[in-house]
């Protein structure tokens, strides 16, 4: 196969659940994982006579997202009805935005293997989610409307993405962004982030866009990569055979790792958009935009640059710290309380803290065994030499286990390094006297034997001797 002849042109439509307490157009709860059909109201069930009323917090979240990616926020935007029939769609239409969306333009900046990438956005608009269809083997399906009316933003990119890898990283960047903004929990496993991918191919060096196919039902980074990769190979094969790619919608089947066409007469549709008569145009004034702008936290890409440029972290370390909002937040809090170099602190977080948790989002938990200031304290003790590196790691382990602070453990159990010069000198003299042969060999040129003496001193002192002091004294005694 000659996939390499072609350049992939990919645009993503990413749907993100916004983290409001009540639904976008009604007041039942958005809580996840409740009993089926226990979080409903007349509006989200599409009962006759029910009317939508827009949730301010949802608009605010979308405005903040728009500002974070540099979109133009329309002073007036409109809602529109998008019609199709499906059991999980209670009204027979989705309330979305069509001709005048809330946000237009903007771009998402992110890294692929440390290299900066920028994907332009077409638009960001608000809409309501559908319920959930559940299939089983009994020959019928079931519908749960708890999710119906959960607020969504749809983020539509320009076709700026060129590979499956990049598509996955783009989606990952969006997830980090919405989580940094605090507007979504970004829970992939709960379907808080889903995407459709438009994929087309063209010969390298050509400008004209090829015919695209739309891949639906993609709900993880892994699936984005697989689905796009699969579609690129499928289209390349079609083109290689001299055939034309058919413009169509294809459903990605993650289980089987393949897609199938959704073309069929039965599913013929025409969304028949028209302005939602139940909702007047939405106005977002300059005051609102300025307030939202002031409320924006430091964005992931700025954070990354601060870590690499101002703090001198490696691209790799900065990448790890920025991969989840909670890691970077943890680092920032610890960093403020810590005198040690950022690089040292980063190592502790990456090697010790992250090794102990399976989900980095746990770092925001209030009952975290080692909160960031506690780590800062420990790292400073090690940096000052109060604790050896080895001892520091042991103590970190105990802090994590026992939820105690480093200072407390050190004070109560005198585990700290002994820096008493007199005491260390006494032990050093004892050791030098006990190994006369080694002293002769050392003085004869085997300077590597210094380590042997240091080791003996440390052993004698239960590992608590300040290694720097012991070194200096031994050098003098042996010298």
């Amino acid at each position, binding site marked *: 196969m000659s996939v390499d002849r072609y350049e992939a042109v990919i645009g993503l439509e990413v749907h993100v659940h916004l983290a409001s307490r009540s639904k976008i157009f009604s*007041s039942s709860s958005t809580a996840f994982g409740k009993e089926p*059909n226990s979080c409903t*109201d007349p509006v989200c069930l599409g009962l006759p006579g029910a009317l939508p009323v827009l*949730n*301010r917090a949802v608009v605010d979240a979308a405005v903040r997202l728009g500002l974070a990616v540099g979109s133009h926020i329309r002073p007036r935007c409109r809602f529109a009805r998008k019609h199709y029939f499906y059991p999980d769609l209670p009204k027979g239409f*989705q309330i979305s935005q069509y001709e005048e969306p809330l946000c237009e333009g903007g771009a998402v900046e992110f890294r692929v293997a440390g290299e900066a990438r920028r994907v332009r956005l077409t638009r960001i608009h608000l809409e309501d989610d559908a319920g959930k269809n559940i299939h089983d083997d009994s020959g019928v399906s079931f519908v749960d409307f708890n999710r119906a009316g959960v607020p969504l933003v749809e983020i539509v990119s320009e076709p700026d993405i060129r590979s499956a890898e990049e598509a996955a990283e783009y989606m990952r960047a969006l997830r980090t962004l919405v989580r940094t903004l605090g507007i979504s929990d970004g829970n992939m496993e709960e379907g808080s982030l889903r995407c459709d991918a438009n994929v087309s191919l063209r010969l390298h060096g050509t400008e004209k866009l090829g015919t695209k196919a739309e891949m639906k039902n993609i709900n993880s980074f892994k699936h984005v990569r697989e689905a796009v990769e699969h579609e690129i190979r499928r289209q390349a094969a079609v083109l290689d055979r001299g055939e034309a790619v058919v413009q169509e919608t294809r459903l990605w089947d993650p289980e089987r790792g393949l897609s*199938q066409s*959704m073309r069929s007469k039965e*599913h013929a549709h025409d969304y028949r958009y028209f302005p939602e*008569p139940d909702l007047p145009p939405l106005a977002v004034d300059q005051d609102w935009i300025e307030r939202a702008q002031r409320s924006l936290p430091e964005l992931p890409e700025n954070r990354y640059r601060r870590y690499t440029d101002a703090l001198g972290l490696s691209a790799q370390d900065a990448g790890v710290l920025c991969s989840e909002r909670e890691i970077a937040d943890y680092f920032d809090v610890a960093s403020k309380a810590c005198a040690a170099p950022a690089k040292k602190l980063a190592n502790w977080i990456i090697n010790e803290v992250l090794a102990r948790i399976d989900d980095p989002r746990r770092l925001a938990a209030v009952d975290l065994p080692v909160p960031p200031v506690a780590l800062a304290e420990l790292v400073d003790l090690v940096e000052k030499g109060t604790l050896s590196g080895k001892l520091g790691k042991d103590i970190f382990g105990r802090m994590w286990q026992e939820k105690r602070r480093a200072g407390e453990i050190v004070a109560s159990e005198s585990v700290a390094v002994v820096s008493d010069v007199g005491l260390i000198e006494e032990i050093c003299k004892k050791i030098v006297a006990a190994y006369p042969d080694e002293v002769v060999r050392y003085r004869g040129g085997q300077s590597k034997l210094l380590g042997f003496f240091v080791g003996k001193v440390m052993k004698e002192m239960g590992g608590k001797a300040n290694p720097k002091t012991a070194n200096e004294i031994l050098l003098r005694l042996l010298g």
Partner: protein
Amino acid sequence: MSRIQPDEVRTIAALARLRLSDAEIERMTHELDAILEYIDTVKNLDTGATEPMTHAVRFDCPLRQDEPKPSLSVEEALQNAPRRRDSFFEVPRIVPSTGEGG
């Protein structure tokens, strides 16, 4: 010449998920033809730069606070369901190849 043919009515009925008998299609084609002819009179009016009137009120969309209120009970939600199983609405098996919209 007719403005609308039975086949077009059939296509639209399919789009609207509305099963019509052949007799209904025939009659409706006839009626719609007359109605569309009449409706076409609006096309004679030059509306130039007139803004579309999408709403009869002139204020902006009101916004509500993000405060959850109690849900309907599961029983209330399902009390009118023609078919249900446990806490779910039941529908014929969905061949998972539609998933329109989104």
